[in-house]
């Protein structure tokens, strides 16, 4: 999948899967608007997530991004901007 064509929904689903895997929980436990910290995502996990996102989207991201956009909904929206993809709506 070319990174520039990723939609927000795709990014969102992919983030959910990745976080679930990092935390050892199931994707259905992760609501779009729940804060990452509430799920137990600490800075080391956040780093893991950023690295995976960088590889997946082929863009360079900054480590504190996960704290500045601390939910799936907010992070996916920002990632869409960073990755230069197209929105859903």
């Amino acid at each position: 999948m070319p990174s520039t064509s990723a939609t927000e929904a795709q990014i969102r689903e992919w983030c959910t899967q990745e976080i679930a895997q990092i935390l050892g929980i199931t994707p259905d436990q992760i609501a779009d608007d729940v804060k990452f910290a509430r799920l137990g995502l600490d800075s080391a996990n956040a780093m893991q997530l950023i690295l995976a996102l960088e590889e997946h989207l082929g863009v360079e991201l900054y480590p504190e991004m996960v704290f500045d956009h601390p939910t799936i909904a907010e992070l996916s929206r920002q990632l869409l901007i960073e990755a230069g993809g197209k929105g859903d709506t």
Partner: protein
Amino acid sequence: MTDLGTPLRDLDSMVALLQWRAKEHPAEPAYIFLNERGGEAAALSFGELEWRSGLLARRIAMSAGPRERALLLFPPGLDFIIAFFACLRAKVIAVPLMVPRRNAGRDAADSIVADCRPRLALTASSLLHGPRSDLLERFPGHQIEWIATEAESETGAGGQTAPQPSRTDIAFLQYTSGSTSAPKGVMVSHANLLENLEMIRLVSNNTRRSTYVSWVPLHHDMGLIFNVLQTLYVGALCVLMSPVGFLQRPLSWLRAIHAYRAEVASGPNFAFDLCVGRYNAEEMADIDLSCWRIALNGAETVRADTIERFNATFAPHGFAARAMWPGYGMAEATLLVSAGPPGRGAPIRAVSASGLQQHRAEPPAASEDTQRVVGCGRALVGERIAIVDPESCTALDPLRVGEIWVSGPNVAGGYWQNPEASRTTFAAHIAGGDASTWLRTGDLGFLDETGELFVTGRIKELIIVRGINHYPQDIEYTVQASHRALRPNAGAAFAAADTTGSERLIVVQEIERTQRHNIDINDIIGAIREAVVTEHEVNPAEIVLIAPGTLPKTTSGKIQRALTAKLWRERQLKTV
């Protein structure tokens, strides 16, 4: 001022050491800082460090006098090193601090500032004026003069130089001990540093050719002393990279070891696990680690499984199992307490788990009774280690488990302005022993017949995750403040080993009597998790809510964390 060729043992201070190195090989590279891509972002020769720290020392002397304190708050890079030596040259006591995290509401910085009352804070302009900085807001109400060192160092040119520090002068305060509410700054003198650096040199056989590669933060004693100061001591090159860069790409550490043909590189146990976890054959294809002579694993419990996995994973890349170098140390002993001879590898010993609970190291009775412990070497030259019954303070024989006590010139003078804690921790006496004073480490272990130290647990109620010490009372406070349904002073935080032996955090907390019929358990657990992750950077492995009045406490109301942990293991807690 010492002459060229002066033996290291004749040096009186870290300043004399710096000046001697700068005179002997001024243009030799001393420090290199790598960017995230492995490129050289900054470099300092011994001469440049001497020159730049001298200028900054004069600037510091305009604002602070001897024995006043200066905070060091720096992003990863080489400016920290210049500022550290500038403080030493101005005889101002350096206080390295972690840059407070954004988002965290309450951290140790505030109470450390209240404890050491600094006159100055040395930092980088990017932290002071950067668009994402809230540094100044983090220190409200303190009369601190902030200096961005790279902008100011030239203005000190006209100032005065301080006389040389003496051996007994405090070089810096290491604040890794004590809870957030009651931090304890270990007073590390020039003599403590020089003695421990010499002990490390003797035990590791490192030389001017022993290039180091490190990502460990410089506010951490392993980052500062074992890497930055040890390389200056032996005149070697120290290649530094950012801690965040390492966490993001652990294999970049190994790549740098390969590229610089480094002999020495260190990390807490989790760092070795992280490298194994992120192993990628393609990325490692051209990496040769046969140069790596000393892989110090310390600062948290050393795990046999970790060592074996790391050895097996990186053997095809030339990593020699004999290079694995488990060590034991703590800030109260400057840094290093014990380590083995280099090139020996990690001695792993199988002992009886039930025997350990009876305070004895004996062969396991059955395979399910086996616990594997890692030997952390012997006492360093000039130092003694004793295993002592923590109640009666009598010395114990080999293979008996007791508290680890340390005596030697590397043991620091005490905690900053805390005579009571200093007396109990730094001035213990062995019953029936000689007049020596001993450091009580709060850790448990045994010595084998050859004097090899094995660390088996701890008395102090400390939780160590990824090399960072957490105090239970700090976490309990955070838990209780996170939701109104939780009872104050009615929770316990403790460490428990998972199946791989790694330490994880368990939280047990009472709910309020008035709340017990109308609570949303998931809501409360979410609130606790969010608060603990935000404030302490640890995700509790388990959060257990229990009925009011059921947490084990002594008759005087003290929380019994060890008993709570036992009840948790046996599933005996009254959960709600």
